C-alpha cells in the first residue's frame, strides 16, 4: 500500500484533486451518516428548495447504519453499507456541493461521471471492520430523521478513519483496475 495521506473535512477542491484511485487515506473531521431513506429525503429537500440539515459544500457522507452505542460510547459498530443503493441520489448531491462519500462496492457509470464533472471522490472503508472503525469515532449526534432509527442522519467527528480511494475525480476505478490485475483466465 502507498503511504497514507491524511485529509481534513470539509474537503476542498484542491484536496479532492490530490487523491488518486488506490491511495490509502485517513479522514479527520466532521462527516455525516446517511443511507437509503435519508438519501431519499435529502434529494427531495433539494428538489423542493428546502434547507438541508447540514451544509453540503465540501461535505463527506458515510453510508452507514451503526449499531446502537453502549453506555459511555459515542457509537456502536459502524462499518460501511453497500453503496450502489445510493447511486440514484448521488449525482444530485454532488451537483449541490457534496465532495466525498464513504461506502463499499461499485458505483454506477452515472456516479463516476458525476465525480468527474463536479470534482468529487468515492472512498471505500473495509466492510465488516465495524468495531475497528468505531474506535476512530470521537463523537456522534443525530441531526435529523431520528425516527428512521439506524438510518437517522448523524454528524460524526472522526479521527484518522481509514479508507481507500476507489473513484477519483479523474475517472479512475480501483475496483476495475484491481480485479483486472489479479484475474486469471481459464
Amino acid at each position, binding site marked *: 500500500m502507498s503511504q497514507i495521506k491524511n485529509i481534513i473535512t470539509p474537503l476542498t477542491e484542491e484536496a479532492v484533486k490530490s487523491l488518486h484511485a488506490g491511495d490509502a487515506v485517513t479522514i479527520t473531521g466532521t462527516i455525516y451518516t446517511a443511507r437509503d431513506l435519508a438519501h431519499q429525503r435529502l434529494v427531495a429537500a433539494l428538489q423542493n428548495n428546502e434547507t438541508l440539515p447540514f451544509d453540503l459544500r465540501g461535505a463527506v457522507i458515510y453510508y452507514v447504519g451503526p*449499531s446502537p452505542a453502549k453506555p459511555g460510547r459515542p457509537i456502536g459498530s459502524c462499518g460501511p453499507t453497500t453503496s450502489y443503493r445510493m447511486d440514484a441520489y448521488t449525482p444530485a448531491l454532488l451537483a449541490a456541493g457534496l465532495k466525498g462519500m464513504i461506502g463499499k462496492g461499485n458505483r454506477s457509470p452515472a456516479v463516476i461521471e458525476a465525480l468527474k464533472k463536479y470534482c468529487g471522490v468515492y472512498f471505500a472503508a473495509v466492510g465488516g*471492520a465495524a468495531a475497528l472503525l468505531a474506535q476512530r469515532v470521537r463523537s456522534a449526534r443525530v441531526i435529523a430523521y431520528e425516527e428512521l*432509527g439506524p438510518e437517522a442522519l448523524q454528524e460524526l467527528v472522526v479521527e484518522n478513519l481509514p479508507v481507500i480511494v476507489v473513484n477519483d475525480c479523474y475517472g479512475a476505478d480501483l475496483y476495475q483496475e484491481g*480485479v483486472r490485475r489479479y484475474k486469471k483466465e481459464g
Partner: protein
Amino acid sequence: MRTIPFDQIRDTVARLCIEANCILGEDVVRALEKGREIEESPTGREILNQLLENQQIAREEMMPICQDTGWAVVWLEVGSQVKIEGGELYDAIQAGVAKGYTDGYLRKSIVADPLRRKNTGDNTPAIIYTEIVPGDRLKITVQPKGGGSENMSEIKMLSAADGVAGIKKFVVDRVWRSQANPCPPVIVGVGLGGTFEKCALLAKRALLREIGSLHPDPFYAQLEQELLEEINKLGIGPQGLGGRVTALAVFIEAFPCHIATLPCAVNINCHAARHRSAVI
C-alpha cells in the same frame, strides 16, 4: 418426557444472538490468517489485517463484528421427548431474539412490511426452522444473516442436462457479478436439488459448516474444492479491490431431486459467517 422452561430457552437464544454477533468463529479466524499468508495484493493483505484486528476488538469489547447484525435465522432440533413449560417454543425464540438484540446493543434491521418499511424495533420476527429429532434435548443455532450479502444470493432452476458444468457456471458467475458488494472474502453456500424453496434452504444451511471441514461425500468434496479454486481465480480479492482471496470456502448441500429438475441456489455470506449453537 423432559421439561424445559420457557425462560431458559429465551435466555439461551438471547445469549446466542449476542455471542454470534460479537465473537467470530475460530475456523473463520484461521481461514483469514491463512488468506493473509497467500494473498498477493498488498491492499488485500492490509484489508485482511483490518478484519483480523476487527474481530479481536469485537471479541474483547463484546461489540458487533459488523454493524449489520443481521436477520436472526434460528435452527431448532427439537427432541420428540421435549416439552416446553411456561409458554410456547416459538414465543420463547422470538422473546429471546428481542432480548438479545436489545440487551446486546445489536442493530435492529427488520421492517414489518417489505413496502411500507416500518422497523419492528426489536429485530423480530426471527426466521425459525424446526426439525423434530429423537431424544429429549433441544439444540438451538442462531445464524445472524446480513442484508448486503443476502442481496447477492440467487436461485436458478437449471435443466438436468446442465449438469456439473451448468452448476459451476452459475455459481462462479454469481460470485463474479457480486464483486465487492457482499464484502469478500465470502463463504459460498450452494444448495442442489430438492424443490424450489428447499434448494434455497439447503444453500443457507450450508453456511453453517465449519471452514476446513470436508464434505462427507468425496464427489461433493471435490466439487467444492474445484469451485473454490475457480472463484479464487476471478481476481476479486478482499473487498473486491483485487487479489487472490475472494472466497474462504464453498459448501454444498445436496438433496434428492425430481427427474425434471436441477435447482441450484447460491447463498453468499460475508467473511463474518456468524453462528452459535447451544444444547439444552
